[in-house]
């Protein structure tokens, strides 16, 4: 369903993703784990047509997202790591906007919006402006929106960021249900190892733009002789804290790139 072969992505002369390859089968839940700045979001952006790869091939349901953008875009739904709502619109309007862009027919759209907003307990607040929502409510709305057009593939980039335990539970239960009942393929990232272990059938660990291990949670533990996935993760990626790699020098480069009219930095 997702195939990545020798993918490389450089931002200027900084290599964010260095020649990674992996496959995700149809109907699989795949966790992409790694420390801050490892290259997870960058990979997701390439898979979801937001960025062009420097080199290498990616495939989504047999399509090349860098070329067949629109066909590829129909296949997936995404929950971004960073905010992506229109705060000046209401919760319902944000959902409706999404439904129209994805050509969900009117009646079905209304039904699904209600179902999802109820599921994530936002129905009562549907006519409130998003700017009045708490962080967790915004997150829930983004998740509900990402599922609205019943995509075949769902990308979840740290979907549980800022969510309370109740909602996290709700989310993963729903994701597993979608996966079991509708064979939705799920590509997720998270920094909560126990979530990944519970939900994902297969895990890849990326560090400094390189995949350092792949397999089931049991494989990874066996491979490192660790007790828990968290220990395995730490053994594979070391225990030093990652600093933000964009130094002031990078920022100056971004500035100059801005004037040359190319994609500057800032996430």
């Amino acid at each position: 369903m997702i195939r990545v072969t020798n993918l490389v992505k450089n931002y200027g002369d900084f290599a964010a993703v260095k020649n990674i390859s992996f496959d995700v089968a149809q109907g699989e839940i795949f966790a992409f784990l790694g420390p801050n700045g490892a290259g997870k979001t960058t990979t997701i952006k390439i898979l979801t047509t937001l960025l062009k790869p420097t080199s290498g091939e990616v495939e989504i349901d047999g399509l090349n997202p860098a070329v067949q953008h629109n066909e590829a875009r129909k296949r997936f739904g995404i929950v971004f790591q960073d905010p992506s709502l229109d705060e000046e619109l209401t919760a319902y309007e944000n959902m409706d906007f999404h439904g129209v862009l994805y050509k969900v027919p009117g009646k079905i759209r209304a039904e699904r919006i209600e179902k999802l907003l109820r599921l994530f307990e936002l129905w009562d607040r549907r006519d409130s402006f998003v700017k009045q929502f708490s962080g967790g409510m915004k997150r829930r709305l983004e998740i509900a929106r990402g599922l609205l057009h019943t995509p075949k593939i769902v990308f979840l980039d740290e979907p549980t960021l800022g969510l309370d335990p109740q909602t996290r539970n709700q989310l993963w239960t729903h994701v597993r249900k979608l996966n079991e009942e509708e064979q939705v393929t799920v590509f997720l990232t998270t920094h909560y190892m126990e979530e990944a272990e519970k939900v994902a059938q297969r895990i890849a660990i990326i560090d400094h733009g390189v995949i350092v291990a792949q397999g089931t949670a049991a494989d990874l533990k066996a491979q490192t002789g660790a007790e828990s996935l968290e220990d395995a993760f730490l053994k594979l990626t070391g225990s030093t804290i990652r600093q933000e790699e964009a130094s002031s020098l990078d920022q100056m480069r971004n500035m100059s790139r801005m004037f040359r009219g190319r994609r500057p930095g800032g996430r």
Partner: protein
Amino acid sequence: MNAVYILWLRQVKRYFRSRPRIIASLGQPLLFLVALGFGFGPIFQRAGQGSYLQFLAPGVIGMTILFTAIFSGIELIWDRQFGFLKETMVAPVPRVYIMAGRTLGGATVALFQGAIVILICFAAGFRVTSFSGVPAAVLFMILVAVMFTALGTAVASLLSDFQGFQLVMNFLVMPIFFLSGALFPLAGLPKALAITASLDPLTYGVDGLRGALIGQAFYAGSLDTLVLVVIASILVIAGAYLFSRIQL
């Protein structure tokens, strides 16, 4: 097509919901009208040019549309910074449609704003000399609105944050306004300024408006229209191209 509509609707909704912004953006035209219109009125009259307020009003209308349209286009930077742009960029809709919806929405907002300023001009004493020119005036307003929304979008596609914004204001928007003949007659200008003004697209918009509303045009109405249509088309195409190349 629904995509174009929903993007248009979003811009318009956002506009009507931000009343403080609407009111704030009327301050500047009002100031121009009152301070310049009445301040320079006597001199203008003595120079044998008639009423300066009559002359200035189309310029102020053009200015309002210019500023609102450019800002509507530049709003793209907000959407990028607040993240909403990602949502539209992963949707299975050709980016040309997204750009079209945004541009029409921004142009609509600029037209509303222009319409309000017309009312203010009336209140200040501006009078249209022949009502048969009104449809032509609306056409000129639409062309100016579309042209500068597209320009704003094109520029915003090249910027990722507000660091370049001041640069755009001072080296693009302000010169377009001040060099356009919105404030002064085009006849009898020093050569250098005459040439500069003739290269400024807003010149033709304001001149067209002046011709349509008060029958005082410098160029022929057909020339104004032709120049505006050609430049608006070029800017829309350039804006669509740059927009489609955005990476996030």
